[in-house]
């Protein structure tokens, strides 16, 4: 009798929907925070200083490591969200979470505690890359096309999306008897005692071909590697969502 009343009462149904929406919101916030932590762990371990310092964001390693380091976790979460609920949001969820967390963490730790200026260590963004890859998945709904075009959508948008932010720091200045970019000089001025200059792993010398253009090959390479990473980590994401992990034994 009581169940029947609940089923037929429009007020209770409305209230039930509202409660359901709240639970859903809280659940996604918790899931978002969890995947953010996972993304942060894998991304910081793999990308590290390239993500941190303005004078590490070069034309050769930054587009490759930036893409690869983020893709691992983002693809796995994308696979989980898609397989379990056909939601093309996994990448964007991780990307928004980690971007907000990086800004917060760098403000508190590196600006607040150590005093580094935030323009030396603002985080890169992969949100546009993640939205693009999620859209490719939604539009194609095919794994192979997602591997191919999703990986390339991610890789192709990564550097241009961040170039908007780092371009001003590549203006030339004359300092210490040579031409430097503003980013180089910021890295020199705001001393990192534990990171001597020779540890800065950035483009040096030349690619010896491609007319000196390091960026194009780097983006192309990150896209190619991204296809394989996509396939591998989609499989891992798929495996992680299997019911076998929660079955009683």
């Amino acid at each position, binding site marked *: 009798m009581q169940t029947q009343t609940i089923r037929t009462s429009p007020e209770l149904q409305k209230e039930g929907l509202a409660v359901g929406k709240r639970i859903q919101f809280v659940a996604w916030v918790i899931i978002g925070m969890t995947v953010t932590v996972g993304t942060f762990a894998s991304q910081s371990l793999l990308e590290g200083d390239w993500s941190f310092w303005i004078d590490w964001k070069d034309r050769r390693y930054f587009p490759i490591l930036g893409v690869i380091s983020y893709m691992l976790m983002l693809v796995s979460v994308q696979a989980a969200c898609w397989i379990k609920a056909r939601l093309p949001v996994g990448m964007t969820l991780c990307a928004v979470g980690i971007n907000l967390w990086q800004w917060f963490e760098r403000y508190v730790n590196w600006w607040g505690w150590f005093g580094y200026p935030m323009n030396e260590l603002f985080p890169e963004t992969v949100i546009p890359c993640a939205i693009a890859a*999620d859209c490719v998945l939604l539009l194609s709904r095919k794994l192979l096309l997602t591997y191919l075009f999703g990986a390339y959508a991610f890789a192709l948008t990564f550097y*241009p999306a961040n170039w908007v932010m780092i*371009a001003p720091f590549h203006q030339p*200045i004359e300092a210490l008897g040579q031409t430097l970019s503003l980013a180089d000089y910021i890295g020199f001025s705001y*001393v990192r005692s534990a990171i001597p200059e020779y540890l800065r792993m950035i483009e040096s010398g030349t690619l010896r071909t491609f007319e000196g253009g390091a960026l194009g090959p780097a983006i192309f390479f990150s896209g190619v590697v991204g296809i394989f990473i996509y396939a591998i980590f989609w499989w891992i994401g798929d495996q992680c969502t299997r019911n076998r992990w929660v079955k009683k034994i």
Partner: protein
Amino acid sequence: MKIKNWFIIPIVLAFSLMLATIASNSLFASGIGERAQEAILRMRTAQFYDVRFSSNHLKVGEDLVVTGKVMILPIWPHELGFSGIGYINFFEPGPRLVRKETVVNGQPVFSSMIIKLGDTYDFKEVLTARQPGTWPVGVTMNIKDIGPIVGPSIKVTIDPSSTPYTNTVQTLTGQSVNLENYGLSRAMGWSFLWVLLGIGWLYYWLILKPTAPRLGLAYLEKEDELVTKQDQKLGLLFLGLVIVLVFGGAFIASKQFPIVVPLQKTFVRIDPLPQEPTYVEAKVNKATYNVQQRSLDFDLVVTNKGTDKVYLRRFQTANVAFLNPAAPDNQWPADSPEVNGGDLQITPNDPILPGETKQLHIKAQGAAWEVERLSTIYKESASRFGGLLFFGDTQGHRNIIAIADQFIVPVFQ
């Protein structure tokens, strides 16, 4: 009165906040970690000397000039490997002072340097005080594959200034920029825009659409009910928006900043200092470290090839210096940042005459061996020591002889 449960959480939070506040104010580094390094590294690789800090009390905006010399010892410990790449660096707990200039052997240096065994590098670093407080600072020589070899350090007190700190430079295109915050609002703006777009995408899928029913429908593989035409239209719209914003933004940025250079990376060759005439030869014969007495003893055979009598004035290793009180005008300099190890006991302590070859017994005894954690030399994987011997004549000429590879035998009783 019983404390109710709901009251405990604010108390715990307030207590945690209080602890965090106290910690954030008192847990800044009080040293630069030089004693954490193994004695083998500090005594046998690179030796700083003649280091001077122009002041230990500054106002925000005032300059600190650090000068000195660092010698790469001529016999490098083979077990450590020598990469030949070095970098004169400054040690501080975050950029409390901003580096303006580094000059090595008269050449301005931005990059890492190619260094050679036995060479001495005369350096000058100019820094500007940025953040008020008292900070431990020092100079280091970073050597690739070895790490930082820490030189002498001091504590600098920086007082606030009435004008806010700015770090202005001029680009080659004629624009003046303040490096303290240049480009930050742009980066924040774009990040904020992308976060908004990402939240919009998430809002559509995670808030507007109920998730729970999708789990069941996905299990039943009812694709068409889960991904509608409207969803795909929205996907197309977002994809288009992303492409326009990304490539449009990059295009506008390239128009705004048409002249850009890639990050600069190279290694610089530094011209060596002119060779000083050598008029003293010295060789260590045997060395012991007396653990109980905290004393390093060694026999030294010295030959004076000059025309004036010479004294052994100083023995220095890893920023600890022992001075010979019998040498003329050999007082401890008031502005020396090095550690005063005590008197250097030399037997016999007479000057070495021109043409004379003499065996001296040197005793460098003091608590500094323990305090500076150098006494561990006999417990490390290679019980050897190095350092610099400073000889001087009455004319003020100085000859510096490096001890680089001497075995040391501990004496326990």
